């Protein structure tokens, strides 16, 4: 990892001493943020550290482990082209704060994570299904959702 990203991680852990955990990664600096501090952390990252460019929000299901879900955020510092990744781990009936107020581009990817994983984003302006029909049952990208079709006897 470059010197620059180490400095950034040092600054961030000093600013949020109780909420951050730096994790090993082979490509980008990565931290895990506590759910309670996520929104404050995102705002700090954007306005103070200059990570203004939104890249992606995705989720992963670690069923049957606890906490079950991992929401992964990717942002970019556009002038120096530095990528940064932060994650938030939640359990099945917990919600994460939405970062749409920080990066408006998170709107659709968060709806997608809601649609396909059933993760609830608190404060999202329009948390509805995006790909699947509104009356669809279940969340297909969950690991306990069957990959085969309906069984025909």
């Amino acid at each position, binding site marked *: 990892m470059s010197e620059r990203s180490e400095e950034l991680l040092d600054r961030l852990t000093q600013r949020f001493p109780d909420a951050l955990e730096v994790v090993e990664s082979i490509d980008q600096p990565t931290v895990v943020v506590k759910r309670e501090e996520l929104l404050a952390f995102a705002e700090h990252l954007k306005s103070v550290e200059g990570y203004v460019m*939104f890249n*992606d929000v*995705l989720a992963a*299901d670690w069923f049957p482990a606890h906490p079950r879900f991992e929401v992964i955020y990717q942002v970019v510092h*556009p002038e120096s082209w530095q990528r940064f*990744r932060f994650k938030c781990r939640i359990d099945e009936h917990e919600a994460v704060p939405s970062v749409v107020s920080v*990066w408006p*581009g998170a709107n659709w990817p968060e709806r997608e994570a809601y649609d396909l994983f059933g993760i609830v984003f608190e404060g999202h302006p329009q948390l509805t299904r995006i790909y699947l029909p509104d009356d669809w049952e279940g969340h*297909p990208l969950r690991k306990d959702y069957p990959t085969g079709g309906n069984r025909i006897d």
Partner: protein
Amino acid sequence: MATDEVHGLVKREALSDETMVINLGPQHPSTHGVLRVRLVLDGERVVDAQPVIGYLHTGFEKTAETLTYQQCNTITDRLDYLAPMTNNLAYVLAVEKMMQIEVPKRAQYIRVLFAELTRLASHLVWLGTHVMDLGAMSLFFYCMREREVILDLIEAVAGVRMNPSYFRVGGLAYDLPDGFHEKAWDFVKDFPRWMKMYRNLVEGNPLINQRLKGIAVLDRETCYQYGVTGPNIRATGLALDLRKTEPYSSYEEFEFNVPTRTEGDAYARFWVRMEEMDESLKIVEQALDKITPRGEYATRDRKVALPPRDEIYGNMEALIHQFKLVTAGFPVPAGEVYQAVEGPRGEMGFYIISDGGPKPYRWRARTPSYYNLQTLPILCRDGLVADVITAIGSIDIMLGDVDK
């Protein structure tokens, strides 16, 4: 009816009861696929335009979890089916980054060559359909005709025109066929002449200029906030190109410029793409110079790349490797990685989480059109209905890419 005294225009508040909701699509030729746009109209003026997507959703991300890493390659083709090779490239680079595989230089150059040919083919379809949306029919036929020449080159190496899966983890599927260089050089010689013809048809054309200038403006701040990449952000004056900012597959050895414009409107995006085609041709020429007709096309690591066919018939280890790779696949060390390339529509990336097995645990495609399309309400607001069509064409979306 209340009117604005200064301009004599109808006040917006007075008309709030008379706005009309109209659906554009999902079956409409100018939405470039199955996109539905929910338009709120006040007469001819657009109050709001909300894209409704999901009509082409195919669940690729779930499918990928049931396939081995080599099989996943085939579904990357089908994401953005006009630019299959750049999707392949992003995916194989992501897997190679996880496994730390060195790919021979020659294979890297061939990857660059086809990534650029794909960009040309994709931009030709964009040019033809975008100009057709604006009312110019003839250019569409020329663009499709010339795109066919590129598809012939792709067919020559991969055997199929549309979903080639030519790039494999560890290198390429096959070596270049005999006589490929002659065919490719013929294309390189002909292409500037075609480009000149396209330019003659659109440059200075008052109808096209009027339909594009000052329409669907996107500023750089909005691009940052929505993750808009590719020609759309380069039209706002920022030379952001992943081929330059984080070079992959030996792009640092090629000389090319990154065309930019500053206006951020549909006209700027139009010319950024047109100039990009000239730059792509430069890269194609340089790549053809670097590629020898015969040579290495994949890594020699038999645990990853399939052995050549003739080796299988006479060598037991080769036969075992072939059997193991085809039936079980290869394991990828546990971890997660993100790798992006500059596709024709912007940053095409793959986020792969491996649990150490032969199938991906989580397979995420970061498809550029999805993020570009999100800005449609901003592009269309307060414009005219006809400009909605211009806006959709000018951000160059591909519904296979949006809906995955």
